[in-house]
């Protein structure tokens, strides 16, 4: 089963997205802050990471940079999920090494497509 790491500090959004993805036959593991995200990525080597950007302890951009700087984990695609909807936010995410960007509320079908094409690569 394809393993997805969902990094999200908001409880409702974490529950919602993980349930919807599980129903699409993904295996979901969750982290609630950036530090946990980096640690879990190294330990679990997921197939893809869904990364919220405004996170406690360590923000999503910093976490992504660390994941992309580590030889062990740099190949793992990262989709940034954020409620910050400005163009600058998107550019910042891509600069940090995110492979894709989705604005919250996510369009689920579109997200599935993006996940699918990144996993196949």
């Amino acid at each position, binding site marked *: 089963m394809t393993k997805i790491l969902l990094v999200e500090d908001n*409880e409702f959004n974490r529950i*919602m*997205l993980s349930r919807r993805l599980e129903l699409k036959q993904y295996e979901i593991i969750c982290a609630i802050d950036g530090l946990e995200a980096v640690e879990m990525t190294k330990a679990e080597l997921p197939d893809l990471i869904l990364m919220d950007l405004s996170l*406690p302890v360590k923000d999503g951009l910093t976490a992504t940079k660390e994941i992309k700087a580590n030889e062990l984990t740099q190949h793992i695609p990262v989709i940034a999920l954020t409620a910050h909807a400005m163009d600058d936010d998107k550019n910042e995410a891509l600069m940090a090494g995110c492979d894709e960007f989705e604005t*919250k*509320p996510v369009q689920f079908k579109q997200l599935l497509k993006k996940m699918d094409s990144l996993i196949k690569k």
Partner: protein
Amino acid sequence: MVENVYEGADRDRYLSERSLEISSNELMELNKELSKSSRLSNDANNAKSQFLANMSHELRSPLSAIIGFSELILEEHNNLEEDEVLLDIERIHSSARYLLVIINDILDLSKIEAGKTELTLDNFSLTDLLMDIKSMVQPMIDKNANHFILDHDNNLYNVLWDKLKVQQIIINLISNSAKFTKNGKIILEVKNYIEKNEKYILMKVVDTGIGMSTGEIENIFSPFIQTKSSSFVDQKGTGLGLSITKNYCEMMDGTVSCESVLDKGTTFTIKIPIIIDRRKPIKARRKNDQ
């Protein structure tokens, strides 16, 4: 006088040079003023854009839960147990209620910013209001297993205040404390106070919560500033409450201040004169400096 030295054409030339110099100085002054006012308007514009961006962010988080859970139910209701669906509807409901809180806060703050907030002054029993507040805040106190203590003078002065705004101020501060305190105490202390022959009511909201660093305290009264902590990720708040509180206090000729020690707790202190001078114009302080 210097002019007398010059005759005929020389004098004309001198005069035109002088007037040119004066106009040029005036132009330079005007230019300085223009660039200053353009800088100010840029600052205001930036603050406004920042505010809109933050607002969009605050609205999107609960909307994301509302849309996500309702789509989940619509698409997957055949695969879900009834209990699960009920729980999801509760989540939709609470996200929608939260959205309403944000919208009300935004409305209050924009009224303040536009200088359209008015005070409705009334004589009322502060003791009765405190009792009402006590029962209103109980659910949020219970949520994190906190203990609430109301400690007030028995003979509190009669006040001429805006009752609803005072209620909102106190509830804002208590709800703030309740969010950042777990298994602790939240104390609302209300006392008579005299300073320079003026009568005041002094109110303190004291908690034994996570507290704040000095750097964090600096920003708490600015709209949309929130301190984050990993153990309190379930906290909800727009960061507008404290900004509204400060504005309302100042409108009532009062002050609000904050002391906090990291991991020990926070104390907010409010001081409002018992009678607010109606003749004074209400000045809504523009607090856009973020």
